[in-house]
C-alpha cells in the first residue's frame, strides 16, 4: 500500500517533467500539453494530501483544477490558433518582439 510520500514523489516528477517540457519545447501546442502534464502532477499531489488529512477538500480542489485546466486549454488553444494565423508557424521563438 503506497503512502502519501510516494504519491508526492510521483506528482512532483510529473510536474517537473511538464515544466521541462514547457520551457524547452518550441511548439506552442506541445508547450500547452506540457502544462497539462503539470496539471496531472498537481492533481495527484492534491488528492494524496486530501487522503492524508482524511477529508474531501483535496478532491474538491482537484475538481476545480479540472475547471481551470479546461478554461486554460480553451483560451490557450484559441490563442494558438490566432498566433498561427498571424505568422503561419507554431514556433514560440517567432514571438520574440520584446527582445532587448
Amino acid at each position, binding site marked *: 500500500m503506497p503512502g502519501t510520500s510516494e504519491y508526492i514523489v510521483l506528482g512532483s516528477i510529473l510536474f517537473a517533467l511538464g*515544466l521541462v517540457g*514547457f*520551457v*524547452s519545447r*518550441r511548439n506552442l501546442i506541445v*508547450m500547452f500539453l506540457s502544462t497539462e502534464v503539470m496539471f496531472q502532477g498537481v492533481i495527484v499531489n492534491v488528492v494524496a494530501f486530501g487522503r492524508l488529512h482524511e477529508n474531501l477538500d483535496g478532491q474538491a480542489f482537484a475538481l476545480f483544477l479540472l475547471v481551470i485546466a479546461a478554461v486554460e486549454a480553451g483560451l490557450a488553444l484559441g490563442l494558438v490558433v490566432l498566433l498561427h494565423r498571424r505568422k503561419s508557424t507554431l514556433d*514560440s*521563438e517567432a*514571438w*520574440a*518582439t*520584446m*527582445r*532587448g
Partner: protein
Amino acid sequence: MSVETLETLKLCGIVILLAPLAGAVLAGGLSPVLRGRAHWPAILGVGAAFAAALCVLIHVADAPAGEVVAKIPVYEWIAGGTGSSFNVEFLIDPLTAIMLVTVTGISLLVVIYSRDYMRERGQPERGYERFFAFMALFVFAMSALVLGGNLLLLYLGWEGVGLCSYLLIGFYYGKPSAAAAAKKAFLVNRVGDFGFGLGIFLIYLSFGTLQYDEVFRMVQQGVLAGGEPLTDGRVTAIALLLLCGACGKSAQLPLHVWLPDAMEGPSPVSALIHAATMVTAGVFMVARCGAIFTASATAMAVVAVIGAVTALFAATIALVQTDMKRILAYSTISQLGYMFLGVGVYAADSAIFHLFTHAFFKACLFLGAGSVMHAMGGIIDVRRFGGLRKILPVTFITFLLGSLALAGFPMFSGFFSKDEIIHHALSHHWILGGIGLVTALLTAFYTFRMVFLAFFGPQRVPERVHAHESGGWMLVALIALAIGAVGAGYVGVGPKPFHEFLAPVFAHTFVANNPVTSHGHAAGHAGFWAEYGLMVVSGGLVIIAILAAYVLYVRQPWIPALVKASFPGAHRVLWNKYYVDELYDEGLIEPARTSGRACVGADDFVIDGVLWLITMVPRSLAYLLQTLQSGALQGYAVTMLAAAAIIGMLIL
C-alpha cells in the same frame, strides 16, 4: 463738474470702451452667421463709440473753466495688498476728449471704407470677419489707452494696440513677407515696450501709485512717495524710459524700422495705424505725461532732437521710394517727428493739433492709396502706372487735397499745424527750426513727386488690369476725410479755439516749464510779423517745392534720372533707407544668432557630452543585462523555474 455730468461721462466712457469690444466679439463670434455682413458689428460698435466720444467732447467743452478734468473711477481692477490696488478709472479732460474724437472718428471712416475695400468683385475676401473683429478690437485698445486714468490702463491699451497691429499687419498670414512684417512690428515694439514697462515700474517704485494725478502731483512737488526729494537723475530716467516706449510705438529713430514694413497689411489697416491709432499713442503718452517730461530738461531736449532728426531722416528716404504706401509710411514717420519736435519744444498743444490734422489727411492719403491699389489690381509701385486722374477722378481729387494738406500748402490743415511747430522750434533753437523748415520743403517735394508720378503725365496702367473707380462706401469715407484734411486746420487758427480748449491740460506742465516764455526771451513773445512772416516763408518754400516737383517729374522727367545717375552713392543710401535694417541685421541679429549657435554647440557637445558619459554607466550595465531579455516567453519561464527551485531548496 456736476454729478450728473460725471455720470454721463462715465457712461460715455464705458460705451466707448465696450461698444468696439462688443463689435469685435460679435464680428468674430458670429462669423458663420454674418459672413459678408460682418462689417456691421464693427461699424455700429465704432460708430457708437464715436457718438459717445462726441458726447464727451461736448460735455468737456461745456464744463465751467477750471473744472475740465474729471477723474472717474469705475471699479477696482486689481486688489493688491496694503493699499496698492489698481482701479479701472477714466481720466477725462480736453486732451482725452480730442484724442477720443479723433481716434473713433477716423476709425469709423476707415471701417466704413473697409466694407468695400475688403471685397473682390463684390464678394467678401477670405478672413473678412477676422478683419473687422480685429479692427474693432484695435479701436477698443486705443480707446482704453486714451481713456485710462492710470498708467496700468495705458499700458493695457498700449500692448493691446501692439497686439492688434501684429494681427492686422499679418492679416495675409499666408504671405511670408506679411508674416515677417507683423513679427517685425511686434518685436520692435517689444523693444520699446520693455523700456516703457521699466519706466512704469520705476514710477511705481518711486511714487507708489500709477494714477496720473497723484504721480504728476508728486513730480511737480518734487517728492517721492516716502517724502524724500525727487532727484533730477531719477525723473530723467523715468522720462527717457517712457520715451523709449514712445519711440517704439510712434516709430521714431531708432525704432522706426517696423512702420514701413507694416505696409504689408491691407491699406485700411495702414490708415488706422498711421492716422488714428497706434503711432499717435507715443505722442499722446508724452503729452499726457508732460509733468514728468517737463520736469527734466534733458528728456525734453532728447525728445526734441529725436523728433527733428527723425523728421528729416524719414523725409530724405521718402524722396526716392517708389512704393506709394512706403512713401506715405515715411511721411508718417516724418510727421510724427514733427509732433515729437513740437512736444520737445514745449508746444504740446501744437503737437496735438498736428496729430489731429495729420489724422485726417494721412487717413485720406492712405485710403486714397488703397483705392489706387484696388484699381490697379494690387500694384502700388508709382513707376508702373501714371496719369490716373482721368480714371480715378474722385480718388484723385481727395488724394490731391490730402497731399496739399500733407505738403503744408497754405490754407490747408497741415500748413497751420506744421507752421506752429516750426515756429515754436525756431523760438527754441534755430537748428531745430531749420530742420523743420528743410523737412517741410522735402515733404512738399516728395508728396508731389508721388502725386505727379501717379496721377499726371501720360496715362499708363499695368497690363491686364481693368482700372475702375472704387465703390460707394470707399468714396464716402474718402470725401469725408478730404473735407477734414482741408478744414481741420481751421479749428486752430485766428482765436485758436483748439489751443484754448487744450490750454488747461498743459498749463502747469508745458506752458509753465517752457524756458523760452518763462524767461521772457524775446522770441518767445512772437509778434504778429514774426509769426506771419514765418508763414509766408514756409508757404513759399512749399510752393517752390511743388513747382520743382512739377518741373522735374512732369515737364522734364530726364532730370531726376540725371540726378540719380550723378549721385549713385547718395541714391543708393536713400533707397536702402540708410541701411538701418542692414545695420540691425549685422549689429544685433547676427551676433544674437551667432551666440545662439554657440549655445547650441555648447549644449550639443558639452552638456550632452557630459550627460552621455553619465548615462554610459547604466547603459553599459544594461547592455550586459539585455542579453537576458530574450523576448521569448520560455526564457523567462526557465529563469522563474530556476529561481523557484533555488528558493524551494532553501526553504524546504
